[in-house]
């Protein structure tokens, strides 16, 4: 018997309201549990601090039917429930037909077993993979302590090369950059009812105790992908140490709308290299009205990393990320050319 878990209460929520009211009543010592892949590990490892409690109550939201589904609403927006598993997301016909970058992202997360249980919401709301954050003996900023240990310590893999402040962790989600590149919205459930914000604004950086805007009585309900993002050219690429299990050392999500060979819209979002998924500024200005080609793709990659200021031992991520950006845009160029040739026939 291992019984690494401390005592807790477990509530199956029947509805959204049920869940919200439990969270509201209990406060900081309650947390929602969806797949539990990250949450249970954190509890078992006793990751805690003045700003991070080990929960006493787990509110199960897998028992709420409305957030287990992927639906298409009347306006053509795709809604993905936060408790949809990553394997269901990967294999969903609607998602595959409209948003190919999402299965590209989902299938590279974790392992088969993790994808069978882990959820979209869990992937977006997961905690950092920083080794100091997850070590019970290092009390860092995120847990309410007074310093960051990684900045002068170990920071080669899951750490930032840009946008960091006092905390240098890199956000580990793969679904986040892929969904942000699709201009997705996050719909949150809370005491005030439902609220919708751009997914890009869901994340918080700079060493705050939480990585998202969720209050202790809120949880992610679903992600809405706006109807007009269907059929946009898209690509998601991830680079990691092993071909299974590992998080991204760097990831890139790109969406480009191409009309008659010319770029109209472009969004590039970088993951694994910044405390929050990084939307590359000025990408649309650079590409709009132009044809994708080797030279412009190279320029885009250089521009995207202009603001990079890597840590002492993760400089290699700059070149790595530029390569991934070039490859993602090349993928889009090639898929666009293929379609063009198909139409020509």
């Amino acid at each position, binding site marked *: *018997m*291992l*019984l*690494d878990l401390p005592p807790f209460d477990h509530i199956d929520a029947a509805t959204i309201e049920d869940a919200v009211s439990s969270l509201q009543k209990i406060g900081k010592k309650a947390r929602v549990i969806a797949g539990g892949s990250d949450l249970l590990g954190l509890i078992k*490892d006793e990751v805690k601090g003045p700003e991070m409690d080990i929960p006493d109550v787990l509110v199960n939201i897998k028992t709420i039917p409305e957030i287990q589904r992927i639906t298409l609403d009347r306006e053509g927006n795709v809604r993905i429930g936060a408790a949809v598993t990553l394997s269901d997301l990967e294999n969903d016909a609607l998602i595959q037909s409209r948003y190919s970058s999402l299965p590209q992202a989902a299938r590279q997360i974790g*392992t088969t077993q993790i994808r069978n249980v882990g959820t979209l919401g869990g992937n977006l709301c997961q905690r950092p*993979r920083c*080794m*100091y954050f997850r*070590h019970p*003996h*290092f009390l860092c900023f995120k847990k309410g302590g007074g310093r960051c*240990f990684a900045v*002068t*310590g*170990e920071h*080669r*893999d899951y750490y930032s090369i840009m946008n960091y402040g006092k905390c240098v962790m890199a956000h580990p989600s793969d679904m986040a950059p892929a969904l942000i590149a699709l201009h997705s919205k996050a719909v949150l459930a809370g005491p005030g009812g439902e609220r919708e914000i751009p997914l890009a604004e869901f994340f918080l950086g700079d060493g705050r105790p939480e990585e998202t805007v969720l209050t202790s009585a809120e949880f992610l309900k679903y992600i809405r992908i706006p109807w007009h993002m269907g059929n946009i050219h898209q690509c998601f690429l991830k*680079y990691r*140490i*092993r*071909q*299974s*299990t*590992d998080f991204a*050392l760097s990831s890139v999500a790109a969406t480009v709308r191409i009309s008659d060979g010319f770029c109209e819209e472009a969004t590039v979002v970088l993951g694994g290299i910044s405390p929050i998924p990084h939307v590359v500024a000025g990408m649309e200005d650079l590409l709009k009205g132009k044809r994708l080609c080797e030279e412009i793709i190279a320029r885009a990659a250089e521009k995207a990393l202009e603001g990079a200021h890597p840590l002492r*031992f*993760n*400089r*290699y991520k700059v*070149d*790595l990320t530029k*390569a*991934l950006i*070039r490859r993602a845009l090349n993928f889009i160029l090639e898929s666009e050319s293929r379609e063009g040739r198909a139409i020509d026939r």
Partner: protein
Amino acid sequence: MGEKRLLVKGSPPAPLDRELTVVGMPLNRRDGLEKVTGQAKYSSDLHMPGMLHGKILRCPHLRARITRIDASRAEILPGVRAVLTKENTKGWRTYWYEIPQIALPECLTYEGQEVAVVAAEDVDTAQRALDLIEIEYETLEPMIDMEEVLKNPPPPCVADEEYPGRDLFDRKPFILRRGDVEKGFGEADLTLEETYTTPTQYHASIQTRACVANWDGQNLIVWDSTQGVWNSKGSLAKSFGLDPDQVRVIVEHLGGGFGSKAWAHRISFFAAKLSMATKRPVKMEQSREEEFLNHPHRYNSKITLRMGAKKDGTLTATYEKVFLNIGAAANRHNYNANGIIWQTSNLYACPNVHLEQIGVFTNLQLTGPTRSPFNMPAIFPLECHMDKMAGALGLDPLEFRLKNYSTYASTHVKAELREKEMKISYSSKKLDECMKKVTEAIGWERRKALSCFCQGPKRKGIGMAAFIAHQGGGIFPNTAHADVSIHPDGSINLYIGVVDIGGGQKTILAMIAAEELGVALDDITLISGDTEGTRYAPSCHSSRCTAEMGPPILQAAAQARQKLFEIAARFLHVTAEELASKNGEIYVRSNPGVSMPVRTICSNIDPDNPIWGSGSREINPEDPIFSSFGAQAVELEVDVETGGIKILRVTAAQDFGKAINPKLCLSQIVGGIVEFGVGFALTEEGIYDAKTGKMLNPNLHQYRLPTSLDVPHVDAFLVESQEPHFAFSARGGAELTNTPTPAAIRNALYNAIGIWLNDLPLTSEKILTALRAKHEER
């Protein structure tokens, strides 16, 4: 060369003189059925009536002294049955790896060291009890980094602080000299010096350490997760001042060891002590984090090699300086003073050598046998350097190695002979065949052209490496024994005190007996993994098992067989010497048509006097030397934009003597390469906080074992040789298969991108940094 005879005490049996019907067959492993059905019980699976659960409180600091410990609140927690601290265990030592260690000292010397142990009715209560133990530490300045540590003398010990083995091994260079190394360098047309580093490596066996101990007032039984029941028995008896006959150790199945479980682990001692205190069985199971923190792993190394050679490739001089981070304790089992340099001395012919090996004590966790313990840190630098030398001389790396091929050993393994320069033959050495086999199989002739391969960001390369390892066990004073009994109902029992650690020992050792007796494998009933009913057998580590157990098993089987022949002789009207047996039949050698089934003869055995045969291993002679050899070649693809390596194919050849079971043997070769080999080369790394020395990745998430999607395809070949000293020429050596893999990968990487990397693991970070530096140089 000395006499070639089976390494048994007394007279070896005559050779079988017939074709083999069992040995050499690719039979399924005989304990596979229970494993694939979930019926196999490991120590983690055991439950006993009245069983208590033990838990350990561990020191979070690398070096500290307990200034206050008060377990009174834990002791009175309902459900707690015993609490051990330094207060009630004074004078008690454990003998993990035979290292005498104060069980619960006042002064702690490595992270995770035990400070208190609790037994309770359930795990939950035991864990809560740990939280109730009040403890205060004075933290002391830890020794972390080898080079930093060497700048100052060792800090004086505090209180009962001890570093077992420090007097023998700390900072004491062991030097091997031959010829005149300065003169040798003077004769060289090319001299190259490089420094290499290899990281720590953790066994990460999928089963963590677990045991159940039961003291009944007179006798101790431990159902353990050890690779050696007899070694464990001895250590436990010593720790508790018991007669060894009072201690029994049982292992039915073991979930991986790779050297980490070669003796009774610390929890075995604590579980036994708790059982003695409570008079109930006690189960202790390590968590994965404890498994990382608290058992010995591979030492990291820093090795400087300088080699000199003539234009034609002849080596003239080798200088080597080896630093090994030993951690907080050492003994001859977990640190061999010349373990690394022995290989540098012997792998190639070089007349002038000066080799130094220095172990450095630090407050990192203990280090110990880890699959090919000396070989990994020894062979990586040596085989990397050989390739760099060849490159600088403009010679083909294979030809360069063959040019310096040595058919004899210059340095012995026996402690008393290690410093002498010798010229002793190997019992057999087919390393040249191995090297030729793997390079031919990989397509070595494509190597030059492949270095020009360029497809977008992809480059390709081929590389090779070879290795030598000391082999064959036979260390005095532990003599391996085996016994065979034959019964009137036809049952044949083989009694061997070995543990099957996954290498198929239960299968191959029984195959030796079956062949010698002339019966089928299934006719042998195995009594193993238990000190009761068996005699001393070595732990299954250090590549000892097949080499040490094979000969006594053969001898025991032959002895029993001859006694059976004496009964058969009466029925077949010949003398026993005229008989042979095969496929379950005893037959007249000169007239095979005249035969009787073994079972029928057995029915004439006196039920009160079953037949017995016994065998005992002789220690290894001084001459010849027994070694294992092998070579590997690797073809890989590198992405120069991401630094990612994809190994396309590995070819491997190993000289085991002969394989008792080729199916199991090939599994070992492949298995060692793809995990301990590829992992060490590319993905595994113990990561420590530079300031505090704490391990930051004691988990299977960020200590990265190769997954199914990371492992390359391996084509493995067995290069066979005659080895009359061993049973059916089975010299063994399946442990060592991971040895040359990292160097072969690194040499292939050079072939692909023209960069020499000297530090493992070969990560994207290192490759991209090196490529950028090369680019900036231009």
